[in-house]
């Protein structure tokens, strides 16, 4: 919680529904005639499917249908976002343990699950590879023989696969001459870091209900990007977009694990096969086999002068993308960019690869590529500081970009004051130390700068009713982050109406205009701007009506709570609309549309804004067990403007604690091609006991963002600095430099042992 006094703000409307249990989550959706599906998954990492015998399963009473690869021959049966590489259901080959091979559709979940045991799959095993570096070797088994790229499909640009290899994305960038810079530099540091696969762990697993009717398809989906799902389904089933409807009730968390498209085509195919609505709700263990963060090996070479000035930096990222590309190509690019840091790097070379392996497909995850990149680059900053005998904070200040300076000449100049953020972090930590004497805690620091991949494509409908109530209709998904409340706040503010009068509708693509999706810290800013435009639209219509009805000058008309004012005269909406329509009924519909051309083209340059964070930790180490405890943590971010303090702090705290899991315990482990801890019993997410006793979020309100009132996006920054800050703290006190995550007690203990062995 911040120290700042909490503005009197009514609690979020969804809180009440959620706390009382009346909120309808996707897993609560019931559609008449709905059947239940369960998924049979591959037990081998790589192989050909010789035969799937479903006869015994079909004979089980209550089983209505079994979908297998054979059924989908007539569909456009592969899909993807960057590469058209993924079958709706395994057709003749499986590429990872957990890949869907059959779906049983039955009258209830238990019958469907019982039937899974009765399906017999005959596999011919193929050689497999689960490690990305091994997958890049000459003789590695190749997972996909051909690759079909999809240019500008949903993301701008296209992936650059290397034909005949497992590399599905190769990205390169350079400015200046990095080798020359290294030759000029006094010292060149080269360090390689690894980052594991991490599971999103949204509390609600993936769940979708699909129903074909009236020549169209309706989906109740947990997806964060309803219009992406719509597009993919339109291709798979050859249906017009106008006949595909995606409805998105409350979603129980996503963190990117429900971004773009996940199980939607599979559930739709099951419904298509059986000819009745089908619901599939995964277990958490199955969600763990659905997607995960891309693991990475990152090598950073940095050339510095003796005074610590960075002259050049070369970054090489190899990411394990799993069996299907998903959004991996974008993740790889972002990982490269996010390894730069908020620093002057006059000579820069970036190289990133995303590679197929026989593992769960990699996917977007809160700050795509960011934690991987910042783990490497911010750990190395402290290595450099240590070697040059410069204080780590001072080294960062010396290289820090000032607002308006560029990270890369082709990107938007940095629009936050990182030095201020770092300063605020130090001050806040000092305040904590003063309040509770510091008990010898080790301190570590790190910063992160990320370039959210925001497509400036969004639109909203705002309907002002005659009684003054307002309905906001958009495709922004309420996934726990509080977007509905933000839209409510913006609509109330921009229409000058009380917040109680504003209602935000459940997203439904049949009613709400196209929006790119909920992710990349974009919705508050993008939908905020759209509402800004919709409010202007509404004011203009009301002003024209008032001019005609009451003879006032249109430009003098503005909104007041419940009505309009012009000069010293005031009319309730009812009077104005009654005069206009001739009946005491009606509404005014405002439309807000945002495209790259909006705001005089200012939205065109990437990123739309920079999302940054400074983190500082106070850590305790039990040298005998290797256990690391983070006692104090300070997280600082410039969010432009705080729209809802509880939500904003919640986002910041949530991101940091998720980062704590990345740092200390989380890792999906593979052995012999099998994920060995894909359950919440063996995979440890931080509990309340591991959360630092003192946690301070400092939100800087610089008002410099592109959103209404200077709002910027947030919620993905605080995850960045946590792991390197902790590792830096350990290094500063104990001289151990750990380059692999997570910092498990055993790993820390071993580092201490090694240190003792060779002092």
């Amino acid at each position: 919680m911040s120290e700042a006094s909490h503005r009197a703000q009514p609690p979020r409307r969804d809180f009440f529904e959620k706390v009382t249990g009346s909120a309808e989550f996707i897993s609560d959706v019931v559609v008449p005639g709905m059947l239940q599906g369960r998924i049979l998954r591959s037990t081998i990492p790589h192989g050909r499917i010789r035969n799937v015998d479903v006869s015994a399963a079909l004979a089980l009473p209550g089983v209505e249908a079994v979908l297998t690869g054979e059924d989908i021959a007539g569909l456009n049966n592969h899909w993807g976002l960057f590469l058209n590489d993924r079958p709706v259901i395994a057709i003749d080959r499986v590429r990872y343990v957990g890949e869907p091979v059959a779906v049983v559709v039955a009258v209830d979940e238990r019958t469907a699950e019982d039937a899974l045991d009765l399906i017999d799959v005959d596999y011919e095993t193929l050689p497999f590879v689960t490690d990305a570096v091994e997958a890049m070797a000459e003789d590695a088994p190749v997972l996909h023989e051909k690759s079909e790229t999809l240019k500008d499909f949903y993301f701008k640009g296209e992936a650059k696969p290397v034909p005949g290899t497992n590399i599905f994305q190769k990205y390169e960038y350079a400015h200046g001459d990095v080798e020359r810079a290294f030759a000029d530099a006094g010292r060149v540091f080269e360090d390689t870091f690894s980052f594991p696969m991490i599971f999103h762990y949204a509390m609600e697993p993936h769940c979708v209900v699909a129903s074909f009717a009236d020549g169209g398809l309706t989906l109740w989906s947990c997806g964060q990007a309803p219009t992406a799902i719509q597009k993919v389904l339109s291709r798979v089933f050859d249906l017009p977009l106008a006949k595909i409807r995606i409805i998105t009730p409350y979603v129980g968390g996503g963190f990117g694990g429900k971004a773009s498209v996940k199980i939607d085509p599979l559930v739709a195919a099951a419904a298509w096969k059986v000819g009745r609505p089908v619901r599939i709700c995964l277990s958490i263990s199955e969600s763990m086999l659905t997607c995960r963060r891309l693991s990475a090996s990152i090598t950073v070479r940095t050339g510095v002068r003796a005074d610590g000035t960075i002259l050049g930096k070369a970054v090489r990222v190899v990411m394990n993308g799993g069996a299907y590309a998903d959004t991996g190509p974008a993740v790889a690019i972002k990982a490269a960019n996010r390894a730069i840091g908020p620093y002057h790097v006059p000579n820069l070379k970036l190289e990133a690869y995303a590679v197929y392996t026989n593992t769960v497909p990699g996917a977007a995850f809160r700050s795509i590529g960011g934690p991987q990149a910042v783990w490497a680059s911010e750990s190395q900053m402290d290595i450099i500081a240590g070697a040059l005998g410069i204080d780590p904070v001072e080294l960062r200040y010396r290289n820090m970009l000032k607002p308006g300076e560029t990270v890369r000449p082709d990107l938007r100049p940095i629009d936050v004051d990182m030095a201020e953020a770092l300063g605020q972090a130090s001050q806040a930590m000092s305040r904590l130390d003063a309040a509770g004497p510091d008990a010898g805690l080790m301190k570590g620091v790190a910063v992160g700068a990320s370039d959210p991949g925001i497509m400036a494509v969004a639109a909203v409908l705002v309907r002002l009713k005659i009684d003054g109530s307002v309905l906001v209709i958009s495709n922004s998904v309420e996934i726990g982050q509080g977007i509905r409340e933000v839209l409510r706040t913006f609509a109330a503010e921009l229409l000058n109406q009380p917040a109680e009068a504003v209602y935000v509708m459940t997203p439904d693509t049949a009613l709400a205009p196209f929006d790119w999706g909920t992710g990349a810290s974009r919705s508050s800013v993008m939908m905020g701007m759209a509402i800004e435009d919709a409010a202007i639209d509404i004011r203009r219509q009301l002003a024209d009506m008032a001019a005609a009805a009451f003879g006032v000058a249109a430009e003098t008309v503005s909104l007041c709570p419940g009505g309009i004012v012009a000069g010293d005269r005031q009319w309730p909406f009812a009077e104005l609309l009654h005069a206009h329509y001739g009946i005491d009924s009606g509404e005014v519909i405002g439309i807000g549309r945002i495209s790259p051309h909006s705001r005089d083209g200012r939205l065109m340059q990437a990123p739309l804004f920079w999302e940054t964070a400074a983190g500082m930790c106070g850590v305790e180490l039990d040298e005998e067990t290797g256990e690391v405890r983070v006692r104090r943590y300070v997280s600082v971010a410039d969010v432009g403007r705080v729209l809802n303090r509880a939500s904003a702090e919640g986002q910041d705290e949530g991101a940091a604690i998720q980062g704590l899991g990345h740092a200390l315990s989380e890792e999906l482990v593979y052995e012999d091609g099998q994920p060995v801890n894909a359950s919440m019993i063996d995979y440890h997410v931080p509990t309340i006991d591991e959360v630092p006793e003192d946690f301070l979020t400092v939100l800087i309100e610089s008002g410099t963002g592109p959103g209404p009132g200077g709002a910027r996006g947030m919620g993905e920054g605080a995850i960045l600095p946590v792991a390197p800050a902790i590792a830096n703290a350990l290094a500063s006190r104990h001289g151990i430099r750990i380059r692999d995550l997570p910092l498990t007690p055993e790993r820390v203990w071993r580092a201490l042992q090694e240190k003792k062995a060779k002092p």
Partner: protein
Amino acid sequence: MLPHRFQYHRPDNLEQVFELLDRYGDDVAPYAGGTELLLALKARVLRYEHLVDLKRVPGLKGVCESDGQIVIGALSSHFSLATDPIVKRLVPAYAALSDNIANIRVRVSGTIGGNLCFAEPHADPPAMLAALGASLTLRGRDGQRRVAMADFIEGEFTTVRGPAEVLTEVRIPAPAASARYAYCSFGHLERPAVGIAAGYCPERGTPHYRIWAGAIAGRPAQLRSVEDALEGVPPDKLGDVLAEAASAAAQELPAHDDLQGSADYKRHLAAVLTRRAVEQAAGLQPRRKAA
């Protein structure tokens, strides 16, 4: 995931329980808190056609003192033991252990009997109960028998309990007023990787120690060599004797590499925790080097 269909029985006395266990043989399991059983059924690693709920059977829950023994009903939850006045007064270390098991939801439903009968190696109670010299009462149709805690668990997920027997109570001899116990465990996942129970039991001025290691292997192991090394050594003289004996004994413990850690690391933990548990039991400030 969902379990296979099973029939649920809720008898209200032990006779009916025995009758059901008898009738269904391999197809039946007693059901207490369900925190292990239901998970295993859902994961479909276990399958039973019948479950016999023990929760309605009177007399299986609660704690009393009888003949110098603390008698704990097998259906007592970890939470109830963590807060029980008798347990807190006579074996506070066991109350503390109970308070530290899992999370509050598991503590409230999970029972001491279920924990022991499941014999999942990564558990806290067995080593401590062994150190306390506890015995277990097993009842079947043909009567009852007492088994020492030390002999109850045979290995991972196996105990001497017969299929038609029910664990009804755990009996702990009330420790002498001068005795003190402590339990130290460690693990970075949900359950303990290693747990060490230690007792300091002076008799007529001569210190004796009882030390058991749990979780690290398939069954709790008594660290006799440490007990012997410390025999008669007063707390203020434990010093290096303890550290050396603990390290030596830990090296002998059967351990294997798994998600909880490598075998050598777990042996190292066993040595550290042995030292800490003995020092705590002996009333010394733990010599814990926190940076």
